[in-house]
């Protein structure tokens, strides 16, 4: 008996009688006696709802959220404003609680939303076919690799060092299973150096804008891949795509990306969703669910899960992917958010970021002891280096309630004391000015400290 389990003692007695056994224990007769636990699990007593609430609130209070500091953290997930209507719609039990729409007649809501979502992703990426979502950005990159491996059948990927380190690592993990090799194309001046692509390459994988915030010359990269008979996979940040040439227009074959920025919470990294769009040639290799239009018996428009013969539940070991449960609710948030932004709004939002990012970049790189890590065009994020130990500089800024960004050291030790600074519509000029002020001071203090240390 618990607040979630309705069977009363009387219910249990009656039910056992109908079954024809004496006790619930009898129902577990197939379990070898030696395997049955004799002591309760070490999980303690169940708590009242308010006790659980208090505990979870206490845990939350020990996290510094974007409401608790002025945060310039990005590097793959960004502090965007999620409009209230997203929560209001996605919290409706009709969207929140159903399973994958296996019975389309009672799932038109979810299926139509998927279809709308696919349309929006297709518009953003400039590619004709989108699936209904995959897990998240980095695993989408790996999943794209899997598609390319099968489509092209060669043994190597060339991956730009400008691709998110998590994506590169995830690809490496999964490629172990496929027996693929990976070579990295280094960055030069902030963007991917045009790599050598031989006839053993299945795909060239790049990111737009890349991890250092720089806008890549996608078209040139895709063209050289095409000439070598390889596919181009591009991981893209969807909001800058409001301004940037669409991957599809640039010759990209598979565009994937992290969907968090489209109406999803930060949630310490998940759940969000990954999007996945391809050229016509690749449609039957797409992983995951796809909603498609059709008609019912009366000729009315309706939507179904389509092209299911790609999938694990039909094709089993021959499936294009093993994915089953994906991120439908997060993708729903995505299409609601994109409808909220709208055709003009998404451009305005991107331009606001562009302008503020330019402003912030100018302000910060004008500081003593701060320099740009590259001069490439950027939309919403840029990389700088500080002339002092960056982690100490960060700590110092945080004492003033400002989190200046993501230190690049772990992922790009070659870049020295790098810092990746992200701007969204949430970061006002006033906050950027404050960042400049505290960062400038922090760098100055730390430089003095190290001079003193050197001096002493």
């Amino acid at each position: 008996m618990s607040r979630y389990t309705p069977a009363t003692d009387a219910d249990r007695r009656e039910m056992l009688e109908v079954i024809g056994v004496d006790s619930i224990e009898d129902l577990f007769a197939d379990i070898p006696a030696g395997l049955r636990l004799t002591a309760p699990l070490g999980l303690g007593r169940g708590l009242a709802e308010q006790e659980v609430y208090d505990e979870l609130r206490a845990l939350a209070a020990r996290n510094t959220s974007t409401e608790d500091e002025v945060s310039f953290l990005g590097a793959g997930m960004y502090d965007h404003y999620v409009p209230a209507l997203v929560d209001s719609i996605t919290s409706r039990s009709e969207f929140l609680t159903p399973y994958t729409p296996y019975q389309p007649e009672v799932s038109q809501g979810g299926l139509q939303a998927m279809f709308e979502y696919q349309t929006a992703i297709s518009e953003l990426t400039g590619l004709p076919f989108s699936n209904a979502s995959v897990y998240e950005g980095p695993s989408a990159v790996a999943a794209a690799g899997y598609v390319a491996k099968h489509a092209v059948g060669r043994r190597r990927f060339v991956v730009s060092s400008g691709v998110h380190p998590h994506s590169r690592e995830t690809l490496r993990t999964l490629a172990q299973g496929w027996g693929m090799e990976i070579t990295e194309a280094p960055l030069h001046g902030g963007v991917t150096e045009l790599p050598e692509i031989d006839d053993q390459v299945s795909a060239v994988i790049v990111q737009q804008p890349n991890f250092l915030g720089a806008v890549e010359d996608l078209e040139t990269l895709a063209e050289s891949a095409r000439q070598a008979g390889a596919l181009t996979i591009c991981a893209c940040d969807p909001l800058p795509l409001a301004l940037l040439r669409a991957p599809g227009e640039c010759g990209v074959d598979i565009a994937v990306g992290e969907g968090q920025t489209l109406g999803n919470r930060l949630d310490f990294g998940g759940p969000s969703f990954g999007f996945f769009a391809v050229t016509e040639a690749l449609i039957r290799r797409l992983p995951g669910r796809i909603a498609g239009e059709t008609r019912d018996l009366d000729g009315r428009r309706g939507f179904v899960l389509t092209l299911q013969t790609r999938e694990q539940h039909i094709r089993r070991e021959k499936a294009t992917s093993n994915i089953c449960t994906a991120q439908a609710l997060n993708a729903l948030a995505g299409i609601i958010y994109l409808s909220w932004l709208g055709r003009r709004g998404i451009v305005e939002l991107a331009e606001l970021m562009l302008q503020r990012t330019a402003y912030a970049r100018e302000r910060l790189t004008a500081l003593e002891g701060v320099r740009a890590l590259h001069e490439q065009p950027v939309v919403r994020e840029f990389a700088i280096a500080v002339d002092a130990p960056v982690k100490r500089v960060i700590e110092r800024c945080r004492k003033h309630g400002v989190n200046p960004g993501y230190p690049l050291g772990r992922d790009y030790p070659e870049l020295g004391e790098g810092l990746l600074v992200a701007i969204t519509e949430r970061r006002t000029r006033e906050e950027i000015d404050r960042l400049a002020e505290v960062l400038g001071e922090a760098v100055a203090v730390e430089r003095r400290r190290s001079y003193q240390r050197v001096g002493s």
Partner: protein
Amino acid sequence: MIAAADDELTIFERSRPGRRAFEPPPLDVSERPLDELLEPRLRRSEPPRLPEVTEPEIVRHYNRLSKRNFDLDAGFYPLGSCTMKHNPKLHERVAALPGHAKLHPLQDPSRAQGALELMWRLQSALSEIAGLPHVSLQPSAGSHGELAGVLLTRSFHEDRGQHRSKVLTPDTAHGTNPATVTMAGYEVVKVGTDERGNVDLDDLRAKADDEVACLMLTNPSTLGLFEPAIEEIAEIVHGVGATLYYDGANLNAIMGICRPGEMGFDIVHFNLHKSFTQPHGGGGPGAGPIAVSDRIEPFLPRPQVVRRESAGNGSSNPLYDLDYDRPKSIGRLRGFQGNYGVFVRSYAYIRSLGAAGLRDVSEVAVLNANYLLAKLRQVGVLEYLPAGYDRLCMHEFVLSGAPMKQELSIKTLDLAKRLLDHGVHPPTVYFPLLVDEALLVEPTETETKETLDRFAEILADILSEAREDPEIARTAPHTTPVRRLDEASAARRPVVRQPL
């Protein structure tokens, strides 16, 4: 694009130039020419043609759409293998607390101690439930957990210099199992099922050789049956040096009753969106943490949440941290640390129930399933829909619609569609593949006896209706927003986006 009635338009069809829901905050920096910041060559020629709509239109559009979905809060949803149990509302509240929901994934661990401690505690709880000492929360869903598990197996063998080529899966396995095996670069070898519904031990013995890297098993199986010979199975598998993988989709049957670890499993995945109440969201999000034995531990994905006994800064509090220093790790499976929002809900659930509550969950899940099966027998439904295997079941059971098809001329699919007219979601149909015209029924523990009784009555009514007039079921559903949909033509000429 097929024309649609007004209340079924897409959001794109509702668009009118000039409408907007988003209003940007004012530009507060001095504006620089666009060309200067981004050369025209890099820019797109036309903005993406997103819908132009106001807030009231978006709200009404998606609210109306939502009403075209059936959901768990509206009625019985006995979808076998999916554990459609009630999703406590508290979980949505705690997951939305800004300290959880607005926490950046790259926040420094020192400022994410609450989140890391929660993850650490969830790891401990899952470890306790599985009876295996180590847990990684990283995988995003069940099948992602499977992939992690088979890649762990691969690393485990390779670390010992072994290059095995095959993975065994029973013929009752869920589709993700063989699909995963292929993705992990192994060959699938199917193991048969005996007439009682158990793994065919002779077949297993015959196929278990030193090319076998792993046996993936669901227990209770997808037939809703517990493998009584599980200890023997483990012995056979371990005997050839392979690992034993536990597909945890059916964990709801045995929580607090027995543990995969003691059964001999090396690797277990959990579906937090099944046994641990993450709402399914119409197809996710979920999470598929894995628990493993000591010998598998070195290969776990990176980073791993760890607890260091002292924060080091003079304080005696433990410090929770992300450990990247795992040289044998298979590496990352995804971005960041996993689906934390899901962890919050599942952790809340485990705390709400505690040890006794969790055991009660499984007891009642099994009681409800057996009661419903007995009730179906009592009201005569089993005459046309016999149980796949005539024995006590665990938390779900499989029926065969073959006699119904022959005697009443309606198929399992027709029965399923007719159930929709009664406001009930059908069970899983045509799975497992082993049973002809299969229906897999999983009532879960959060349903009342009254609901089970009513479901039995409805099934009986549909069967007697079919005896009179099978056409009704064959053309069902009749009361849903749309009628049966033409899936074949959708796949033939796929229209997967709106032409604009």
